[in-house]
């Protein structure tokens, strides 16, 4: 088994699979852009049981939007985005070190940016749907931070479990444990939060359906991208967008967010602004999802 295939299996088993099934996402060791590009060029297939589980979970997610029989295998873009997500998460790992941690985080985030740029925006509606099916659950990804305090001190364990020795004699040592669920957007270390937020925004924007599904998020703030506007330029894309938004938030709130984002579009992007505003208006008027199919696709 080649190293690339081995890496793909690890990513599938530790990142993509748990992301779809709700288990613990345990990012692999930092991948880096070189291996990520090689992975994408190889176009591996997640095999074994995890491959079947991933396929079933993606298809199940797709069928919530429209009737489908199958989804294609993970595309190179999805492998790149999965690698980028892996390194993005690893950039929040506290074990990167205190002395060189900032430089390492910056390096990881730069390589993640390169992966995201290499993946690019989806070129087809099917690809956009596939990315949403694979990564649509990221908005629910949390990191459980444990804050432990005992009689002589306290310590935080972001995304890791505290050593068992610190939990001994909880009454005697007055051990108190507090767990916080930190969302993906707040996982960054304070020193790299700004760069992290940019990379995260770019990563979310690479899956326009996922971006629209989570547009009501606090950070990164929703903004119109070429990918999301391209999605709305086709009627089935608008229908899919309406469906994912309906499942995540209220149409009124989503329309308000869209309008705010449309106002921030550059002045020479009048058509893009009009397209965005028209979709916001349509979203506000339509309170029910519209089917895509023969009834809605009469030409």
């Amino acid at each position, binding site marked *: 088994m080649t190293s690339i295939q081995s890496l793909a299996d690890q990513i599938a088993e530790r990142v993509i699979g*748990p992301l779809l*099934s*709700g*288990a*613990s*996402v*345990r*990012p692999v*060791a*930092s*991948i*880096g*852009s*070189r*291996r990520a*590009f090689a992975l994408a060029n190889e176009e591996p297939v997640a095999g074994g*049981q995890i491959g*079947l*589980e991933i*396929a*079933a*979970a993606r*298809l199940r997610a797709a*069928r919530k939007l429209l*009737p489908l*029989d*199958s989804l294609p295998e993970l595309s190179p873009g999805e492998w790149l985005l999965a690698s980028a997500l892996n390194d993005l*998460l*690893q950039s*929040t*790992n*506290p*074990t*990167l*070190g205190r002395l060189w941690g900032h430089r*390492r985080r910056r*390096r*990881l985030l730069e*390589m993640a940016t*390169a992966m995201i740029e290499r993946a690019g925006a989806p070129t087809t509606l099917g690809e956009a749907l596939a990315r949403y099916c694979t990564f649509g659950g*990221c908005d*629910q*990804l*949390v*990191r*459980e931070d444990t804050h432990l305090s005992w009689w002589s001190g306290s310590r935080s364990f972001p*995304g*890791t*479990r505290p050593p068992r020795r610190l939990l001994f004699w909880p009454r005697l040592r007055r051990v108190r444990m507090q767990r916080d*669920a930190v969302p993906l957007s707040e996982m960054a270390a304070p020193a790299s939060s700004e760069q992290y937020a940019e990379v995260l925004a770019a990563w979310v924007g690479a899956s326009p359906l996922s971006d629209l599904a989570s547009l009501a998020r606090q950070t990164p703030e929703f903004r119109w991208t070429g990918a999301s506007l391209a999605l709305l330029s086709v009627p089935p894309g608008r229908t899919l967008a309406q469906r994912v938004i309906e499942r995540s938030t209220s149409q009124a709130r989503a329309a308000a967010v869209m309008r705010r984002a449309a106002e921030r579009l550059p002045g020479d992007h009048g058509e893009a602004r009009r397209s965005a505003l028209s979709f916001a208006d349509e979203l506000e008027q*339509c*309170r*029910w999802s519209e*089917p895509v*199919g*023969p*009834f*809605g696709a*009469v*030409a």
Partner: protein
Amino acid sequence: MGDLERVAVHQTRLRVPGVGLDARGVVLGARGLVLLPSLDRLVAFLAVYTQQHSLSSMVESLRIEVVCSGLGTRELALSFAASSSGRLDRISEVARLTGGFTFTGTSRHYIQFRDAGAPFGYDAREITATDASLVLYHTTFTQVYETQRELDLRLLLLQLMLHPDPGQSGGEGPLWVLAEPGLGPSLLAYLSRSGVDAQVGMVEWPPTTAFDEQPVRRFLFRVSRLPARMRSLLRSTPGISAFEPAAQGVAVEQGHAHPITLRACPVFKPEDLVLFRGGGAPPLEVKPLGVLAELSSVQRAQVRIEEVPSSGRPVQDGAADIRVPIRLAPSSSPLRRVEASLVALDELGRLRRLAYLLTPEALRTTRIAVTKLGAFLIRDAGIEALPLGRLYRQIHPSIYVPSGLEVVPAVSSDVLFGALGAPEGRLLFFQPAGGVLAVQSDRFLPLQEALLQPEQWTLVSAAQFDEVLSTELPRVELEPLGILPLRNAKSEDD
């Protein structure tokens, strides 16, 4: 008394050959004869007699002859089968009124029929020996006549002029209408538009002069019932003449009357038509009557599906085209229930949204067919629950017309359906801009079925998954990266 003597009661022997005594003891021959001094008296006799009695019983035996006496006087002898003394009594009363004399006989010798002075009739004292065709024995004369010629009753009736009779121009009964070629199509359209039940044909006669090469043609309408408001119009329009049927195969121009009751003169063939015209014009004979077609069947539905220029079919030489196109005109009648609608493609979104508000009954009874032009919705109980698109009302089980418009000419819906080709299994929708859309009936399905998308399920490979509700949220667990956390993380520049 002259040369006649009264027949006595129980007298059995008579000198006049060919006569005898009937059951009442009245002298009666095989035939009766009325001698009239002139043609106008003959007309008067026929006019009076036909007012009360019909000539149908004696028309077969009726002969009208111009007889000439030895003195050169011409008179008219109307002879017929006597059949009974009662008939001769009636005829003698009319003859007496009109200045004629009634006789009875068999072949040549005719004796004066009975009168008040001789209840059982007369007998001649002496029979005149002659070879003449007719010998008449009267109390005041005995005359021998030679038959000059015979008059045809039908020809006589045709030669009689109508006299004005304003009382004849009333009622809403059947009517024959004759129209000049230039007015025929307009009249046809007018009658069709007004929903008048009529038939139309084209009749022609030989040219009136040798200079005319074309026959004389006229439109002939047989109107079952003409509304009173139209009668004055037809009467006052030059080029249009209206005739009221007087008998089978005979019609008299409105406002005129024939001297003789034509109904009592069964001399015209039912398959022909004679139109008696007023103003001294000769009657028009149509022999045979020919084909008369319903107005509706004459009209062709010239429906244009697309805006294409009319081909302009050349009219055949000498033949007039009486077809009219079907059009839509604003309706002045109150709005009626609409049973269908056409929702344009850009309004389908609103239709979907409205569908959520419909009652189960409306969803179940509304049928929809989606086409490239839009969605056709049909509901027999009314489509008011979906006020979208162009509304239609049903005028035929297969024909829908835009609401507020009506089809002109106002033909019956069955005829309109037939004119459109009576397409089976299709529903026809008239378009305001012209043209008719046909949608197959089997393409319509209940709205409730069309609204829901069927799920396409495939068998996924068996795999154990946690229950959906117990699916945990993904959590990130970071593992220690070791001393060299980025040992494998290389960029392309490295």
